[in-house]
């Protein structure tokens, strides 16, 4: 296994997995005030971020090994299961994204759950923060696992905290939404379970028989390979979420708290597209090529369908979730274009979409907390009430429509430029999505922020959510608080930095994409892409 993994003497990844878990237990069970518990949660996530950055600095993007920061412990050797961690460039940036988003979400979630005076209320708040923090453990674990079985464990186990986060702390239809989320995920997960077992049986077996590296490059019977591919792919498509198995997302994202929605859509859903690259392309390259026409068609449909659905929404949070369906379509399209450019674009998009969707969900939530409604029609003219909030909301919208200069543009651009050589029609049709994106984002901004100043606001304080009034010290409507600015600033900084200097991320992503694509044949006609194929096969 050392052929593919550079081992690390310090178990960085395990530290990243365990730190939030420990912090989460402390938050949940340690005595003390609610405020302290929140601080502990935030502190833990910040410490984890620092550790993550230190770990990332050990990463060598020039290395020829697929995985770095590797760890390996035998777990259940009888069944080939091992505790094996390691990251390639794609996993690394996704883990960093998760580590950055967690403290931001915790900060944004500060007043999500009302703090009733009684002990039950305090326990509720602590539970909420503990669950949010615990998500970090699963997010790091699922991206870092280099053992298929371990991946599956993280993949399924993360459903538990998410289920409770949606079902206990969400909106009025949270039970329904949580159930729906779970059933969809379980359905995908169970199919994948079968495939997980089956792929092991096809592999060399042994004490480390579940390692990704041992299941790569197998000579499989075409039918078997295709069945295995489908088993994995369905689970990932549900997670991604692709049309037509996307319908759990709008409900889950709308009914959960904004912080949960952000981590769910921004990070956890990336497991789907990440899984496609890591498992589908790497372990079942021939089947991936076989399935390409269908997958590409579904991806293009997702792009346009998600965008059209977003345009038609009346609920802000649902609208934002449908934009994600559209963006995930782009990501999948780029993955199945099998060119280094599109692959890099998709991987970068996973990172950028995390920040972009976080900004949309969290900034919209700031508005919703003030306006007390998720319905777009209940707003209008808020730019004159809260100009600062309108400003950051606009920036988030522009990121959502992939404006050049902001991060999401580069990734979207790379996806369609890279997709064209192998899937020209799909690339051109999907590019039409940029027109629809302008519509769904700017119509939202127009309906919510522009127009005459709403008269009702100033005169009817009862229309304003109680919680908000308390946190803003009795003012009816205030502009951004310091805490909200702290939520917004890192996200907007990320847009700009990655918008102008995408190579910061592409530098580590590129080698990983090349490795992942080296298994599928990248047959194309362009001079450049042909060169990439030649280079890929020479590895």
């Amino acid at each position: 296994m050392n052929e593919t993994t550079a081992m690390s003497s310090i178990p960085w990844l395990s530290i990243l997995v365990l730190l939030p878990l420990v912090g989460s237990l402390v938050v949940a069970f340690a005595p003390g005030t609610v405020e302290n518990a929140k601080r502990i949660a935030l502190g833990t996530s910040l410490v984890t971020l620092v550790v993550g950055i230190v770990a990332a600095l050990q990463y060598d993007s020039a290395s020829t090994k697929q995985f770095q920061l590797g760890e390996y412990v035998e777990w259940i050797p009888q069944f080939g299961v091992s505790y094996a961690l390691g990251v390639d460039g794609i996993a690394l940036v996704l883990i960093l994204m998760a580590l950055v988003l967690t403290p931001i979400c915790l900060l944004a979630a500060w007043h999500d759950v009302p703090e009733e005076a009684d002990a039950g209320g305090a326990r509720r708040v602590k539970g909420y923060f503990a669950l949010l923090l615990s998500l970090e453990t699963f997010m790091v674990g699922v991206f870092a696992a280099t053992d298929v079985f371990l991946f599956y464990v993280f993949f399924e186990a993360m459903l538990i905290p998410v289920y409770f986060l949606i079902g206990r702390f969400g909106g009025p239809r949270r039970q329904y939404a949580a159930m729906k989320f779970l059933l969809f995920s379980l359905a995908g997960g169970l199919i994948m379970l079968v495939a997980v077992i089956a792929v092991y049986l096809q592999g060399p077996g042994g004490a480390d028989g579940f390692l990704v590296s041992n299941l790569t490059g197998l000579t499989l019977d075409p039918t078997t390979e295709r069945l295995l591919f489908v088993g994995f792919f369905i689970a990932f498509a549900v997670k991604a979420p692709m049309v037509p198995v996307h319908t759990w997302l709008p409900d889950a994202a709308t009914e959960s708290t904004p912080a949960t929605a952000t981590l769910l859509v921004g990070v956890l859903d990336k497991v789907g597209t990440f899984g496609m690259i890591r498992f589908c392309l790497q372990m079942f390259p021939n089947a991936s090529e076989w399935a390409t026409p269908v997958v590409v068609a579904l991806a293009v449909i997702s792009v346009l369908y998600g965008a059209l659905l977003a345009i038609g929404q009346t609920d802000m949070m649902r609208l934002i979730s449908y934009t994600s369906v559209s963006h995930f379509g782009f990501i999948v399209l780029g993955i199945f274009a099998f060119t280094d450019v599109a692959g890099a674009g998709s991987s970068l998009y996973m990172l950028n979409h995390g920040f972009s969707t976080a900004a949309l969900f969290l900034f919209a939530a700031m508005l919703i907390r003030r306006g007390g409604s998720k319905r777009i029609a209940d707003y209008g003219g808020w730019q004159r009430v809260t100009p600062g909030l309108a400003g950051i909301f606009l920036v988030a919208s522009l990121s959502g429509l992939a404006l050049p200069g902001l991060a999401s543009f580069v990734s979207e651009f790379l996806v369609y430029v890279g997709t064209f050589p192998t899937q020209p029609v799909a690339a051109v049709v999907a590019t039409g999505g940029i027109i629809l994106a302008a519509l769904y984002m700017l119509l939202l901004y127009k309906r919510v922020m522009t127009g005459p100043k709403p008269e009702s606001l100033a005169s009817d304080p009862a229309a304003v959510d109680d919680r908000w009034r308390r946190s803003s010290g009795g003012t009816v409507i205030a502009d951004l608080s310091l805490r909200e600015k702290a939520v917004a600033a890192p996200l907007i900084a990320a847009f700009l930095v990655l918008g102008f200097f995408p190579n910061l991320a592409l530098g580590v992503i590129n080698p990983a994409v090349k490795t992942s694509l080296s298994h599928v044949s990248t047959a194309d006609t362009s001079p450049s892409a042909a060169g990439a194929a030649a280079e890929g096969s020479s590895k």
Partner: protein
Amino acid sequence: MSLGMGNLLQAPSGAGTYAAGLAAHSGEAHAATGITSAAWLLIALPLLGAAVLLLGGRRTNGFGPVLATALSWGSFVVGALVFIQMLGLDAEERHANVPMFDFVTAGSFSVDAALLVDQLSIAFVLLITFVGSLIHVYSLGYMEHDPDKRRFFAYLNLFVAAMLLLVLADNYLLLYVGWEGVGLASYLLIGFWNWNPAYATAANKAFVANRVGDFGLSVAVMIMFFHFGAVDFSTVLGAAGNEANQGFMTALGLMLLLGATGKSAQFPLQSWLGDAMAGPTPVSALIHAATMVTAGVYLVVRSGPIFEASPDAQLAVVIVGAITLLFGAIVGTAKDDIKKALAASTMSQIGYMMLAAGLGPVGYAFAIFHLLTHGFFKAGMFLGAGSVMHGMNDQVDMRRFGGLSGIMKITWATFALGWLAIIGVPPFSGFWSKDKVIEAAFIGEGWRPWVFGGAALIGAGITAFYMSRLFFMTFHGKKRWTEDVHPHESGLLMTVPMMVLAVGSAFLGLIIGPTGLFTSWLEPVTGGHGDEHPVLAVPVIMALTLILVAGGVALAWMRYWRDEVPVVAPAGNLLTQAARNDLYQDQVNEALLMRPGIHLTRSLVFIDGKGVDGGAGGLAALVGGTSSRLRRLQNGFARSYALTMLTGVVAILGALWVIS
């Protein structure tokens, strides 16, 4: 191979050959020296201004506008210094590369953020920074009492930075960044007073129409990379000249043209420009007249070798230009809103430029020449219109103006120079530039010179009519003011920029036109304009033009100066009504795009809720068992779930144990 390609792309761009134009030089693009190597300051200064004003918040309210204005002038000074340095070089040496940083490297795709300073881009730089800075000054007066003045100047600076990036970029990706950047600034400024819902809608309309164009530009970049393996000007334009695959070049050219029609409000994406007049008037002058809307012309001229490789694409450019120049001119004859009349005129004038650009090397220099003179006279007239509005309580209805020449003398005089320039009266600027475009349109074989030359000629006559109509209705004839207005001349902050632009309108063309200064300046980029002759003798064309112009002015004089202008527009004939309604462009868009789009969206929302969700939900329920099982799962779910997980893990381990 890819490695080699990568190296080629990553090599200092100076090593690549920059070949543009038919008879272009194929000399080395030089590494920049002296002030030119600091050309990035051109963009950085206004960008800094925008950042300070936007992030600084209310603290910058006091000094912000002045700072923004100073930084814009700073950018002009840098531009002027670069220009002076360029003057000291031989014609063939006047193009330099200014590398900034590695922008995007993804697999075989690699693009540097680098600037190309050559004769074409520096001409734009001088226009943008000079007119832009004047308009900053004007805005200090015009926006004096606006509470959001700081935000306005921030956007204005943002625009200047983005526009400079657009014209200085040395590759299509970076150009695209500037391209959408100016679109953003335009959106923000059209919607600057967006508490008026109509203005907010206008802003959205502009952005979305531009996005349709941007789709074209995106596809162009896409197929460009596919075919040439690069998106920088030197590689793409260098290879375009030797390209045999004409079908491909036509596709590329048409996609670029689609991009150009969006940004430059050309047919069929013209409909946003009239509504864009919702923005404050300085914005209309700078963005929607002098600079941004001419970006499409820049794109076509810059991409010259691509169009030259495809006569079909060139023909499409010419047709678009000819249609738009007539479209705009016809609409311009019926508008009573002074800004909308000017907007229609802008559209029409850009149609002239587009037509010239589509003619190839014979027209490039004239397209840019007309673009420059138009930048001066149209910006000047917009500022004049703003001055009039300032004195007339922000009214825009020309039927309520009249007789202002005596009261607003400076505005009247400066506007008069712009008017003489645009209708092409010798020796004012427009005469030199527009006449050249008309002459070029008459060059060619077969039916084309007659059709396009004829269109350009007729357009000149209509232009003279509607511009005279506008001028007479506003400044001459009887006073038709509403009772509450007390017109007055504007302050110096506003009138000085108008005077400067008026001087430009008067003399710029004369200085650089007949002397051949400008065409020979651009020749290394645009190629020689050859010695082809129009199908009609030049003096004949000139005489015909002047006759039509005189006729147009005379007609306008009779109807809008001598005769009394009714304060309520008469019903008018069918053509007038059509022109008043922008030839029903919005109705067409609504019927063809908007309403079907709304229906599609609504039905999809319905289907998604019922069909897709139902189907997928049913599948999920199947996995969970029957629907009653599903309900049972819902109760006491935690236990069930844990059990399911456990069962799954046990099952997998058991299965493996049995097998092994």
